[in-house]
């Protein structure tokens, strides 16, 4: 029963939600909307588990002075400090308003660090372009040529070099790129449906019953 009950629950919920997509009648749709609300509530409870795991693993590593333990200490202290400021010193549910302690922490620390991480992409793209963009086949050559045209065509200097470059870049994006992408998307969509059916029908038992066959 330990395997069957979760399978039955996921099958029943999956089939109901699938039917709910096609049936606008309130007898079905109201329950469908409720189920989506239940999902949000269940997911909210998992935050407790996630937080407990985070604190447990990091405090254990701090206690046994594992490698780079000061960073783990910084993480735990930052977590606790942010929670205290957010709960008690940030005007309750208006914690994101301007001038609150929480929004100061968010803008000063998280926002700056997040933008910094994102900006690393510029450097990594350059180093990846040098290291990994090897022309070893006809397809790789086409990829490299398209990349070169697009990179130059997408910035003002492309038009300054020759007006045809941005036009070719636009054509590449609108026609071959779109066609290939739509093909991939259609295949992926079928993969999504197939995966969904496998989970709903209980064939995909790795997910939901802890990996057992």
């Amino acid at each position, binding site marked *: 029963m330990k395997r069957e009950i979760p399978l039955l629950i996921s099958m029943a919920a999956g089939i109901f939600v*699938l039917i709910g*997509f*096609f*049936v*606008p*009648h*309130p*007898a079905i749709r109201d329950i469908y909307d409720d189920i989506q609300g239940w999902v949000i509530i*269940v*997911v909210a409870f*998992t*935050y*407790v*588990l*996630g*937080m407990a*795991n*985070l604190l447990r*693993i990091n405090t*254990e590593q701090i206690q046994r002075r594992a*490698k*780079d333990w000061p*960073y783990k200490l910084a993480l735990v202290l930052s977590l606790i400090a942010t929670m205290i400021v957010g709960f008690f010193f940030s005007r309750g549910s208006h914690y994101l308003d301007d001038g609150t302690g929480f929004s100061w922490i968010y803008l000063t620390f*998280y926002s700056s*660090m*997040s933008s910094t*991480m*994102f900006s690393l*992409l510029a450097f*990594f*793209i350059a*180093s*990846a*372009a040098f*290291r*990994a963009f090897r022309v070893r086949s006809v397809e790789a050559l086409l990829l490299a040529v398209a990349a070169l045209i697009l990179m130059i065509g997408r910035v003002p200097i492309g038009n300054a070099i020759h007006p045809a470059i941005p036009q070719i870049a636009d054509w590449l994006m609108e026609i071959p790129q779109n066609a290939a*992408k739509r093909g*991939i*998307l*259609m*295949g*992926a969509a*079928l*993969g*999504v*449906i*197939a*995966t969904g*059916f*496998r989970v709903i*029908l209980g*064939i*995909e038992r*790795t*997910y939901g*019953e*802890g*990996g*057992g*066959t």
Partner: protein
Amino acid sequence: MKKFAAWILVLVLGASSTTAFGFPLKAVDTPNDKGNNVTLSWPAQPHPPEQWAVLRVEAGKTYAAIDTIGGELTSYTDETAKNGVPYQYRLAGLGAGGAGVFSEDSQPAVPEPSWFDTGKLNVFIVITLFLALVLYYIGQAQRGKQWSFRPIAGLAAIEEAIGRSTEMGKGVLYVPGVQDIDDIQTIASMIILGNVARMTAKYETPLMVPANSPAVYTVADEVVKGAYADVGRADAYRSDMVRYITSEQFAYVAAVNGMMLRERPAANLLLGAFFAESLLLAETGHETGAIQIAGTANVHQLPFFVVACDYTLIGEEYYAASAYLSKDAKLLGSLKASDTIKILLVLTIVAGCVLLTLGNHTLAEFFATQ
């Protein structure tokens, strides 16, 4: 004052049965809805008024105004009707050019909730056909039928990567993407994680799974625990194999990059939904010398993975992974169904293109989504 007078005039004339009326007004139960809606439509007027007053009447009552809409409109949906009650409607012109302009009374319309959204009939047909094919091929698989599928290098490399990690005495880092558990890519990632965890349990290879959400952490932990128990290595499972990091995108990436640089896994499996962080992860992983296998259905991240990783699973190859790795007959049957429906869809697209070229829009219109 002017507006008040106009409303009085409308109500008096609208309630009167002796006023002259003009254009036809059609009222129907709004199709494919959950009820309480009636849709009105009328022909465009050569000289429309500034506004229309929408008047409504139930049996045994008089007309009452329920709304005022722009004069340029030619349709309106009354969302305040009650199911099962017949209503009639009339439009009255207001403002400039509206004096004495009325529609005919509509036929009675009774709003009811719909049991089937006919606008989704095309989706229903394809889904039903797909399900029928899945069940058919699963039945065939159960009767021993076997099919051959093209080899996918990335999937074959997963076991090789885990073996390599074991030989080097290093671990395997499995990154399940940055979306929550309700994303189908994350669900597919959990399925593949089960297969990977079974391999790492067999080979006694350390496994690290940083999760980006508490729900993903909870599911991944159960999947890994179950996989280890499945191959009789429950003793080798450790609770810190799966850890919750954070739900913030770039903070998660920073943490995972830190894990790559500190723990130096020999294999990085980046399987799930990724966004801007894909290249950050792939490049950092490359710097550590790890073999990297990536898979995602986010098309805009594929170029980064193709360039920076050793193997990339593109779109449906990623969703087919569980069938390939487990070699389970029923899963392979569903893969066969997927291929069959794709052929049917390609034929439909070709047929639609030919018909459109010849001026026939029937097939294209049937498959148009809302």
